[in-house]
């Protein structure tokens, strides 16, 4: 019964479109990473920073729209153990996205390779999940998108624990603090989303 419920849940949340989207992103990440690493005028595998930032971000943005059903209130009115389902939903997505993206960065996994891809998957998905709990699935992409653009543009030149904490998406994977930051964001976002679900606007809907 749970198996059938799981299938229906995934269908209701548009999982197939998400999987298709992540596949495209994975291909693009692989192609982009290979291209950047091969440019003679750039600094080799360390030039894959844009891929490391953007690919998990795109996947997380896509995930955002699967974090709420067609009618959140209708779902909340059911006795299902939603916190467990929500947490499972996000963790499954983290696992799937990280697994797919890590594969693209296995050649030279250091600095801006597989490790950083995994870390940023944690962070971005955590941010999107947290934003879903606060803003609703419709706008969940907004904070991650804004933060991603800002951090990537700033690309702080100095290093240090504080910088590694706030600019975790653009840190080389050796910076331990960036892992703490990304994991912390994931833990917070996951907890918030699991317990609160997608935020519901109190706006009345037109009758019918």
């Amino acid at each position, binding site marked *: 019964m749970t198996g059938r419920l799981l299938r229906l849940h995934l269908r209701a949340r548009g999982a197939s479109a998400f999987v298709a989207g992540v596949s495209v992103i994975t291909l693009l990440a692989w192609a982009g990473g290979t291209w950047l690493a091969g440019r003679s005028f750039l600094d080799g595998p360390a030039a894959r920073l844009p891929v490391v930032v953007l690919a998990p971000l795109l996947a997380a943005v896509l995930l955002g729209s699967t974090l709420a059903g067609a009618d959140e209130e209708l779902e909340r009115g059911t006795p299902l153990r939603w916190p467990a389902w929500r947490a499972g939903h996000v963790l499954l997505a983290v696992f799937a996205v990280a697994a797919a993206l890590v594969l693209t960065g296995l050649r030279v996994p250091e600095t801006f390779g597989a490790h950083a891809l995994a870390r940023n998957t944690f962070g971005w998905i955590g941010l999107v999940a947290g934003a879903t709990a606060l803003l609703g699935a419709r706008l969940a992409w907004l904070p991650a998108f804004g933060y991603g653009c800002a951090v990537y543009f700033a690309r702080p030149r100095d290093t240090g624990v504080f910088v590694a904490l706030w600019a975790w998406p653009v840190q080389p994977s050796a910076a331990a603090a960036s892992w703490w930051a990304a994991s912390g964001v994931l833990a917070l976002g996951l907890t918030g989303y699991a317990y609160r679900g997608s935020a519901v*606007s109190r*706006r*009345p*809907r*037109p*009758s*019918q």
Partner: protein
Amino acid sequence: MTTVSVAGLQVSYGKRVVLDDLAIELGVGVHGLLGPNGAGKTTLMRVLATVLRPDRGEVRLLGRRIDDRVGLRQARRRLGYLPQAFGFYPRFTVREFVEYFAWLREMPAARIPLAVDRAIERVGLLDRADDRMKHLSGGMLRRAGIAQAIVNDPRVLLLDEPTAGLDPEQRVEFRTLLRELGCDAVVLVSTHLVEDVAAACARVSLVDDGRLVFAGRPEELIAAGGDGDSGDSPIERGYTAVLRGARQVSR
């Protein structure tokens, strides 16, 4: 005077024929459009609203065909439409929402402010005119929807389920408004609430399975019903009797 006429209308979604060789003539006054779910009421409304292009058939609004761009645009200026499920912009105020649609209906700019106030007043929302749409209740939203439909003083007014979500008192007021509007415009009201039809409509059309199965005055529909027909009011009994009769013929 006939101002809306439809002949040989056929509409299908894929293989499913929704309207089949339908013909209907509407003059000035309030018309009720009745019929079971899936009978094709909304599809007919959408064709008349020029939103849906029919596969076959001729549609004339205000005596003009609407096949060409010029005719279509002129017809749309004299048209008011409230769809069954209508969307709105939550951040707009009621006034802005109605004003925006006055603009979309190409009303002369000088006439817009007065027309907007009048439309909002007629649906009884004047005290909430500057509230954002997202702060309105369901019934108020529907009234705002009616206000945008009547803002341009349409000659053809199409209201799909306008009374859904209105409380009994509002429905009574709404029927009065309908009768007023029906004085100089074709008003077509699709509804499931047959009492609304009995109370407010001069004529009734009944659609079943894509065809027109009855057209006449409400009294004629009432007369069609007998004691053996199901229903709690005379007009409900007439409604079921006509439907049953139509289905027996088609079998």
